[in-house]
């Protein structure tokens, strides 16, 4: 097994202080302000253990929201929201594309699709572009974070988000979502979900490196016959339309995006603001000119 040489310097199970630049040991990346970081979630490696959900809730002190099952396979958290920042989808392919029940299993549990979903930290981010208070901001790691001490709960980020991620909590009246572990990045630590992922389905790192890794993985999967595999949210993949350049948290998927509750080509809402404002103002201006004529002709008649 490959081990980072620095790891040998810390043989104890319990450490008195955090390891400086710990992400170098756990994710092979040194975290520095000004560089772009993100997640590459390779769903072909996900085993649905939900360690990411648990690690996220533990680190970020989020309450458990639903301990029972929902009748939607093994999914019990349902969707991303104010208190769920990682959510594992469970999709059972029990029918073949013709719609009849599958009677045979392709190898390697291919009837199962599992995917750990997360805030995409879009570039540009629609929630941030909608936020009128500046509570949502882009960090020095190119991630998108809500400052709850600024947020006034206007809720405009919720319909703005193209993925239904950010949510205003009715408990405290502020918006909440994944911070890509902003506090951990500041301390040189890998985000909790990526660190806890036992299969490296969730990989954290610098975006350029993650894109290279994703391209390699995709090529290798295609070579092995999984020609359904594709990237979602990478600069040249599916997952972003009009105005959305890329998703800083991107995915490798093997079924249509909608299967994972993801839109094929979501667009940037702010692109619609200008044309709508112009159309509205033009309407009122045109009606005002017409009204001017009506008032003037009324004056002439009296």
């Amino acid at each position, binding site marked *: 097994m490959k081990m980072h040489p620095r790891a040998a310097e810390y043989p104890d199970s319990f450490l008195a202080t955090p390891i400086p630049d710990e992400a170098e040991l756990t994710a092979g990346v040194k975290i520095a302000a000004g560089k772009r970081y993100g997640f590459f979630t390779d769903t072909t490696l996900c085993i649905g253990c939900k360690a990411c959900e648990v690690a996220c809730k533990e680190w970020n002190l989020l309450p458990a929201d639903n301990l029972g099952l929902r009748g*939607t396979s093994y*999914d019990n958290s349902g969707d991303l*929201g104010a208190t769920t920042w990682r959510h594992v989808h469970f*999709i059972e392919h029990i029918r073949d*594309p013709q719609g009849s029940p599958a009677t*045979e299993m*392709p*190898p*390697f549990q*291919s009837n199962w699709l599992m995917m750990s979903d997360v805030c995409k930290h879009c570039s540009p981010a629609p929630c941030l*572009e*909608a*936020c*009128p208070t500046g509570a949502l901001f882009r960090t020095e790691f190119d991630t998108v974070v809500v400052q709850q001490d*600024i947020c*006034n*709960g*206007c809720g*405009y980020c919720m*319909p*703005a*988000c*193209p*993925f*239904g*991620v950010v949510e205003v909590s*009715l408990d405290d*009246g*502020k918006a909440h979502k994944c911070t890509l572990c902003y506090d951990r990045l500041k301390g040189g630590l890998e985000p909790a979900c990526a660190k806890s992922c036992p299969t490296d389905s969730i990989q954290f790192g610098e975006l350029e490196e993650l894109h290279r890794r994703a391209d390699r993985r995709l090529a290798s999967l295609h070579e*092995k*016959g999984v020609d*359904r595999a594709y990237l979602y949210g990478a600069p040249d993949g*599916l997952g972003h*339309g009009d105005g959305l350049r890329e998703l800083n948290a991107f995915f490798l*998927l*093997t*079924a*249509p995006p*909608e299967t994972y*509750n993801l*839109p*094929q080509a*979501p*667009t940037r*809402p*702010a692109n*619609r603001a200008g044309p*709508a*404002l112009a*159309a*509205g103002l033009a*309407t*009122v201006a045109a*009606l*005002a000119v017409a*009204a001017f004529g*009506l*008032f003037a002709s*009324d*004056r002439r008649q009296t």
Partner: protein
Amino acid sequence: MTLQPDSVAVSAPGEGSRTGREVARRHLGPSPVTAPLAEPPTYYGQPALKASFYGWKVSTYMAVAGLAGSAQVLSLVAQTAGAAHDAETVRRGRYLAVAGAVLGAPLLIIDLHTPRRFYNMLRIFRPTSPMSIGTYVLTGFGAVSAALAAVQARLDGGRGGPALERIGAAMQFPAAALGAAMSTYTGALLGATSTPLWAAAPRTIAVLFGGSAMAGGAAVLSLGAGQAERRALGRVEALASGLELLVLLRFPRRLRQQGVRTPPALGPVLLAAASSITHQLTKEIAGADRVPPWVDAVVATGVIAGGFLLRHLLLRAGNRSAEQPRDYFRFTRPR
């Protein structure tokens, strides 16, 4: 051990041995990027978006903002093009505008989930956010309208001279410009979201709001006004209603083109606009004195109510469409 799917043979009854690649292809179909799909799949039918929680408070604000904003626009029109009797319309428009701002702002503040921090909206300006643009439009409109109403009150008290009248007339221009923005920015606010029903037709909604606001503004100014003032106002109301009606009739088709198949039920709004047009046509053809004045008031009230309903029903239908994953998935398919 390295797993090699290609080298693993899977046998099925009645068939020869096949490679994993063939089995996978048979079961899971061609590549999703190229596969044409009639209906997008969903994840257990669950919503792919979060619906806004905007309800009656926001829709009421939107309607009030439209009435107040358009009142300032019509005040400017009456001031520049109107006859002597239209001075009354200018006066009422100025008071109505400030009343709208005073009533509207608290509605927005109590709709926040942390209302005591409403002033955080004023710490930045975000040009990509119609909510932020609207914050400053409302603030500016409120300030100009309050100043203009103060000028008007002084004039009404007989304490102003021609100089003050000129100041009021000059202030009417910025008030009307901000009023036009008040009437329609709320449409852009809906359009600049990911909610399918709003995002599918941002321009249409803004035009609808503009027409409805001008019709409502004329209607509210005509309530209690004299016969002479009501003449021009009634025509403006019917014209704006006509525009609203045309756009309303095309709205469902526009939504369907964009993949949104849950159109809002806007029947009552349509009815209010149609009644305004019919009423005005009757007056033009048969003569205004053949129609009793109370009918004017009933029709005007209907138009105002239609404006409130339009925004309320549109908000409700939008929130519902956000929970229809297929509407959203069809809308976000590359076209």
